[in-house]
């Protein structure tokens, strides 16, 4: 280990081994189940898009009929492609026609057997394969555009947010933010989208404190930022959220529309949105397999732990979650460069030595995950409305970022908790980042904490506590699921047999088939 904290390699190894021990049974469970969202994502990869007159997506309509006829447990591929091969959608046999006819009640699905089943499997694999090919092409296109326009000129990448609710307002704001220096634009989603069991359709102009994630909104924003990339001579990345009840579908849409980063956490939906744990883990695994293939960098949500719990007392829950997120991500095929593990500057500034503590925590993350592009989140909890004090706090946040080599820096706004950022707030925030990076961007070359000093000891303590927490999770009969159920993680008790979206989960039958999973797991 070449880190600055001289962490004991055996301890680090032990932490990873424990994370594996905790995570493995979850993966086994995830493999044994499917969800409506995974099946709908499969239909989306096969090219089914659009919605009926009421705005219900065709993937939902088709899924519902198939489920009523043959159940969820065998997957959607066998009955759907069997119906297509039987000519239920006419001679062209396209999915949209099938979905329309199915929702009008004029198609009955069945489970094909023998040669019919073989043919249905082959046909579904071929058509879903086209969606995967689109993602492959988009990934190659990204690499080409980065080569042509150039990459972000330095690390950390500067990450700015737009959140107007109207995609046509978001676009000029995003382009302006890019001109001002953003390397990554995140479009915040409408409040509550994570709890919708469908992905809205089309370009949207009204959202609550954010803009709906839709395929068309993705396309519009990506095209606008491609223009900006050309104008500015550097590739501008686009971020959205693969979380909530439609994680797999949004991941598929993001892959096909060349988004570059996606928020995707292993436990956020369970703990903070009361989404059923099994649903979350199944959806998460599939969505991460899709992200892996699409070359998307995931951003995990550890900052959220610190917005609900004390950032000193709960520091080890961040480390624990990072270790788990790493395990789940790698199991799903993501590589180190795709792991934007999250953490945040949220210690109460009144706590003595708060800056040294922040530095210790951030350095621990850097040393534990030397090859991951860490995502460093600014203070929110202790931003009081005193914008002058907030500006100072953001400066110290930036300094920790510079000292610990963070790769993705979400720019803090002094008007956090006051207004959605004004033009001038963003400008001042970027001046703050530039000043710190110019003045101290290379300070990490000179800075090495005293081997047994405050920072090194604190980091070791947090790692130790996170190992204790992992051990406690392992001791539960049912491991992580029981630990989540009894509130070991955060304050929330989330039993595996409750929560939103549970009705959309089924145990796979012996004849279950999903061409997307098959294709994504090959290589």
């Amino acid at each position, binding site marked *: 280990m070449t880190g600055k904290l001289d962490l004991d390699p055996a301890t680090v190894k032990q932490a990873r081994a424990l994370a594996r021990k905790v995570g493995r049974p979850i993966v086994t469970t995830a493999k044994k189940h499917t969800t409506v969202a995974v099946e709908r994502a499969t239909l989306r990869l096969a090219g089914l898009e659009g919605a009926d007159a009421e705005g219900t997506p065709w993937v939902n309509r088709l899924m519902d009929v198939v489920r009523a006829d043959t159940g969820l447990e065998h997957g959607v591929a066998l009955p759907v492609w069997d119906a297509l091969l039987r000519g239920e959608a006419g001679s062209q046999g396209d999915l949209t026609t099938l979905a329309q006819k199915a929702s009008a009640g004029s198609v009955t699905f069945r489970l094909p057997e023998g040669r019919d089943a073989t043919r249905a499997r082959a046909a579904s694999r071929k058509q879903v394969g086209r969606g995967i090919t689109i993602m492959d092409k988009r990934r190659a296109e990204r690499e080409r555009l980065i080569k042509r326009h150039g990459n972000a000129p330095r690390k950390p990448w500067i990450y700015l947010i737009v959140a107007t609710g109207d995609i046509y307002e978001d676009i000029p704001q995003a382009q*302006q933010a890019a*001109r*001002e220096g953003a390397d990554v634009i995140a479009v915040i989603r409408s*409040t*509550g989208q994570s*709890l919708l069991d469908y992905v809205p359709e089309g370009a949207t102009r009204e959202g609550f404190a954010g803009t709906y994630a839709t395929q068309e909104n993705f396309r519009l924003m990506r095209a606008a930022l491609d223009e900006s990339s050309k104008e500015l001579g550097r590739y501008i990345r686009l971020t959205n959220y693969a979380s909530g009840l439609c994680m797999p579908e949004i991941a598929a849409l993001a892959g096909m529309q060349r988004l570059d980063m996606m928020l995707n956490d292993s436990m956020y939906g369970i703990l903070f949105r*009361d989404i059923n744990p099994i649903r979350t883990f199944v959806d998460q695994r599939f969505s991460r397999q899709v992200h892996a293939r699409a070359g998307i960098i995931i951003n995990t949500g550890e900052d959220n732990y610190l917005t*609900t719990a004390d950032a000193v007392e709960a520091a080890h829950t961040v480390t624990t979650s990072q270790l788990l997120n790493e395990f789940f991500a790698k199991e799903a095929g993501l590589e180190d460069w795709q792991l934007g593990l999250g953490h945040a500057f949220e210690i109460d500034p009144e706590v003595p030595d708060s800056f040294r503590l922040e530095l210790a925590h951030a350095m621990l993350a850097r040393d534990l995950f030397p090859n991951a592009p860490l995502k460093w989140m600014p203070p929110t909890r202790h931003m009081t409305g005193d914008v002058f004090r907030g500006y100072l706090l953001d400066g110290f946040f930036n300094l920790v970022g510079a000292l610990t080599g963070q790769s993705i820096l979400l720019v803090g706004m002094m008007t956090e908790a006051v207004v959605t950022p004004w033009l*001038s707030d963003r400008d*001042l925030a970027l001046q703050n980042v530039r000043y710190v990076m110019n003045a101290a961007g290379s300070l990490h070359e000179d800075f090495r904490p005293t081997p047994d000093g405050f920072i090194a000891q604190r980091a070791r303590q947090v790692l130790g506590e996170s190992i204790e927490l992992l051990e406690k999770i392992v001791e539960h009969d049912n491991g992580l699921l029981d630990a989540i159920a009894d509130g070991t993680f955060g304050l929330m008790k989330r039993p595996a047999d409750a929560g939103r979206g549970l009705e959309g989960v089924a145990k796979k039958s012996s004849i279950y088939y999903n061409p997307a999973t098959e294709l994504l797991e090959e290589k």
Partner: protein
Amino acid sequence: MDEATGTSEAGHIIRPYGDTTGDGMVQLSFTLPMTHSKVAEGAAAQLANKMGMDPALVVHAKPMGPDFTFFVVYGRVNHLVDPSKVVVVERDYPLLTPKEANAAIKRSLRRRLTVVGACIGSDAHTVGIDAILNIKGFAGEKGLEYYRELKVVNLGAQVSVPELVERARAEKADAVLVSQVVTQRDAHLLNTREMSAAFRESYPSGRTPLLIVGGPRFDESMAGELGVDRVFSRGTTPGEVASYIVHQLAPTTPPAPDTKAS
């Protein structure tokens, strides 16, 4: 006016304080949608003058891209402030932190307080109820799920009134929270009346849980008319709802002796 103290004793007229009593100095920052130039700085001074700053000193002007300029202005205002004429609408319950709310419930109920929440009618928008109940919360405040002493049962959207009453009874709800976000032709008012009537019918008189409705289209003064205990409107935060519930159901005895006349 008392030039010597500069403090705001009742009845005294005061001015903003820079570094000398009565100097009237204030600071201001803003952006104008114009290219940075001498003219732009003059425009900034003009705005400050119109706002009552005289003299106005444009101490900082910075271009932000080709079309905008940011200004910081210091200056003197000659407005007078009379604190005795300030009118404020006081909240009729104290705002508690989650810690204080938990402590009050523990002390006064000696058990957890149960809150059942739902969107009723055809409204599928759980934005409001989730903002108040989900731990994620709203406006930087954590939702009611975050409160250790609150047991939250969130039934989600499109819950029928009979279903809501039944769950409230089964859970022995102390408070029921109903959200109505997107409604047509005053459906939110009809739904709320139907809901409050159903609770009055199925509970012995005086034993109904605390009924709270909320949503952007409600008027906060309509509680009596709708048969509920409280109406919350747009922008209500979880902390306000929690504080109200605690105030109603887990009142803490004020520290004796009560020194403040009210």
